């Protein structure tokens, strides 16, 4: 019941923000221009496909989810769902769907569309990119026209986010489609704030949905997504005010963006993930906890933030938990165990474990052999990671370790990570979400460590611990915040003590925009969409709130 209450509070808050805006006398009309480094666009608006295969805007302007869960702090915004509740010891999830919503062809939206969407993914497993049916869900059914019940074989409360984030399609259209994974859906029928307008492979334009269920929104007449192909072009377009928004990494945004026009040019880089130095614990060197701990103490993270991210993105918390989730999830009682840069401490740990140093300062392992150079894997051409790798190799020289930077092109890089052929690698947290559970589940659960087929889907460190698996299961089975916090606390204690990987810096979504024409963007003061990219799920909230100046 507590949850239902939260939702109503959320709805109230949403109404409040809307009220605030209208008080300022909102101007309607206008077009927002968004550019991204997409290649050519395809005339494809199939919401089941991975983003990038459908046209940008499919997931933000056209189709809608049930709820939106903020990646920053887990705040829930109702969309096509209005409330939800766990029942029967978290074995049943009841979702109330919105009434009075119409599809863009005039057909009313009902709970049956939601049920159809889920069952459709069951029938066509290739559509189930969130793995809902692969994760304990057994049945989805409509209780009434506006009530859906989802039944679980065993409790899995974190799956809520994936269920909530499923884009809902109209049953009366899609029930006719036999081959959904190759269906391009060139004339999308949607519930979202915009409908498809003009399309070319260089740009797609969406027009306001005249029958949208929010009466006063969207403020804009149209939304245009342009394929800028490269970051460089997108940045130039933004600086010359040919576009209003782009999700792109800018080296030194203060100088390269804001300084060029301080009144108009803005950026909000919201932290939603963590950059991590993964240690391949299946390699002999990294089976030694002392060695891993020493590395954690020997890496100075401040230069990483200052030089690789121009000081805009801060060093990571040792637990890997992002700032927005720290107040709720970091166990302050453990703060004495959180490591920080300390060469003496690192050396101390190593000597106690039997390591020593030769005349030239190189590290000698307990059996008397020189520690071989450690490879550090980065993606070829990723300047932020390469810069970090250079700084890390400099840093660990302090304890006599030689590091060799190894770059692989994107495809073989990810192959090396999953296949476990690397020594150490810089990569983002292979899981991120509204709670630290997502990070820990993906990066530490033994199921994903490649023990079955050698392919570690997401546990790149190949670390497995029964304690962590049990804590993750405990989290999954509960919808009680205190129980979940306990579970996360158990895990973070192991993460800092056993060092399966070393969190390096925060990782952000790069929202860059200019306000010469359009205002109302999400920012740190009003993070209403969690800083999701403008073509992702949270982009919908952005499109609903931005308006002419």
């Amino acid at each position, binding site marked *: 019941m507590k949850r239902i209450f939260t939702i109503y509070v959320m709805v109230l808050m949403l109404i409040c923000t809307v009220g605030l805006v209208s008080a300022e006398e909102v101007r309607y009309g206008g*077009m927002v*221009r968004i550019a991204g480094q997409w*290649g*050519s666009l*395809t005339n*494809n608006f*199939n919401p089941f*496909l*991975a983003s*990038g*295969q459908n046209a940008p805007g499919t997931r933000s302007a056209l189709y809608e989810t049930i709820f939106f869960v903020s990646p920053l702090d887990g705040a829930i915004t109702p969309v096509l769902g209005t409330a939800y509740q766990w029942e029967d010891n978290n074995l049943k999830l009841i979702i109330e769907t919105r009434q009075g919503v119409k599809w863009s062809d005039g057909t009313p939206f009902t709970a049956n569309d939601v049920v159809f969407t889920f069952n459709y993914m069951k029938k066509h*497993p*290739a*559509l*189930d*990119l*969130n*793995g809902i049916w*692969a*994760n304990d869900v057994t049945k989805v059914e409509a209780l009434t026209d506006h009530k859906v019940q989802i039944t679980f074989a065993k409790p899995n409360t974190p799956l809520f986010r*994936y269920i909530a984030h499923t884009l809902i399609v109209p049953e009366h259209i899609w029930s006719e489609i036999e081959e959904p*994974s*190759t*269906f*391009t859906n060139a004339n999308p029928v949607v519930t979202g704030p915009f409908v498809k307008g*003009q399309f*070319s*492979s*260089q*740009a797609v334009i969406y027009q306001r949905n005249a029958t949208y269920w929010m009466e006063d929104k969207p403020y804009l007449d149209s939304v*245009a997504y*342009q*394929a*800028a*192909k*490269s970051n*460089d*072009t997108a940045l*130039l*377009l933004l600086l*010359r005010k040919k576009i209003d928004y782009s999700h792109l990494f800018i080296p030194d945004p203060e100088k390269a963006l804001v300084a060029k026009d301080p009144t108009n040019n803005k950026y909000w880089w919201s932290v939603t*993930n963590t950059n991590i130095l993964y240690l391949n614990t299946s390699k002999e060197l990294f089976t030694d906890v002392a060695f891993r701990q020493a590395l954690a103490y020997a890496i100075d993270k401040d230069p990483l933030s200052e030089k690789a991210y121009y000081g805009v993105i801060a060093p990571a918390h040792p637990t890997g938990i992002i700032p927005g989730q720290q107040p709720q999830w970091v166990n302050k009682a453990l703060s004495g165990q959180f490591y920080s840069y300390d060469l003496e401490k690192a050396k101390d740990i190593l000597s106690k474990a039997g390591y020593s140093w030769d005349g030239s300062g190189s590290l000698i392992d307990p059996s008397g052999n020189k520690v071989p150079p450690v490879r550090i894997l980065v993606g070829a051409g990723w300047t932020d990671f390469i810069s970090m790798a250079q700084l890390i190799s400099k840093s660990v020289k302090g304890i006599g370790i030689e590091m060799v930077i190894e770059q692989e092109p*994107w*495809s*073989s890089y*990810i*192959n090396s990570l999953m296949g476990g052929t690397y020594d150490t690698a810089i990569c*983002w*947290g*292979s*899981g*991120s*979400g509204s709670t630290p559970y*997502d*990070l820990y589940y*993906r990066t530490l659960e033994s199921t*994903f460590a490649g023990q079955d087929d050698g*392919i570690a*889907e*997401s546990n790149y460190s190949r670390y497995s611990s029964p304690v962590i698996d049990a804590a993750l299961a405990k989290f999954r089975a509960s919808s009680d915040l205190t129980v979940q916090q306990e579970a996360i606390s158990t895990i973070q204690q192991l993460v800092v003590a056993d060092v399966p990987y070393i969190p390096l810096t925060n990782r952000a979504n790069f929202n860059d925009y200019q306000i010469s024409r359009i205002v109302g963007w999400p920012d740190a003061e009003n993070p209403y969409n969690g800083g999701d990219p403008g073509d992702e799920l949270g982009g919908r909230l952005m499109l609903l709130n931005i308006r002419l100046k």
Partner: protein
Amino acid sequence: MRYLLRRLGFLLFTGWAALSINFILPHLMPGDPAQVMIAKFQGRLNPQALKALSDAFGLTADKSLFVKYLEYWQRIFSGDLGFSLTYYPAKVTEVLADAIPWTIGLVGLGTIIAFTLGTLLGIISAWKRNSPLADILVPTALFFNSIPYFWLSLLMLYLLAYQLEWFPLGGGFDVFAIMGIWDKVGSIVYHAILPLTTIVITAMGGWLLTMRNNMMSVLADDYIIFARAKGLSDRRIKYKYAARNAILPSFTGFSMALGFVIGGSLLTEVVFSYPGLGYILYQSVISLDYPLMQAIFLFISLAVLLANFMADFIYAILDPRVKEGGE
């Protein structure tokens, strides 16, 4: 006729070999496209999706390389090149059809302008050798020929398009404007000027030098000396006799250069975000889009092969000597 048949056989054989290499190369690359897709999402996707994506891409069906090779040939002959993995479920042919006109327009026009300008300047520099103009032309051509494509593109982009705002900041045309047909043509031309200039500047030097050297060789031949002695006008000797003969070897080079220029234009297209093949090829390589990669190679290889054959054909017509003695 025997010469042409021989060339045709050669063409077919070369085509077979080139296309087979084209098939093998992408399969030598490490990595798994579904993994690549998963990783692209940086943790927002559930790991179980790996299986779903593999299914969607048809990668789970284990086929031997030989079977895939046979299918590859079947596809080439039927014109069905399969689905692009990056733009799935768009057909490779759709993606290509969209990009090819841009590249042909840009590269074709660039090559023709560079060839014409270079050849003309080459004639001048050979004819007026030892004049100050010719003395400057050759080193200048050598210098332009040595400038990295992408570097020149970047400088032009930042200076002429960004700083001075004379030209657009990239792309093929103004995508937000709603335009009539002539405005659109105008917009396309306006957007093509900078990339075109880069290609012309960097490619022109080669033609200038080739033509100059050919021209010099021809001018030293007996019949030109004879023509001069006979008192024919300079203009007549220059264009009717010398240039006409000197241009023959340039023509065979022309078809060869096509492959190089298409490759070279890749970097220019990337810098100017031009909607052609170059960018798509680059993207397909980094996202392991085998079918798309193969189709682009197929297209470029076939284009160059065909151009070669046509050059041989024209050569045989223009120069009767080849018909007799093989090559």
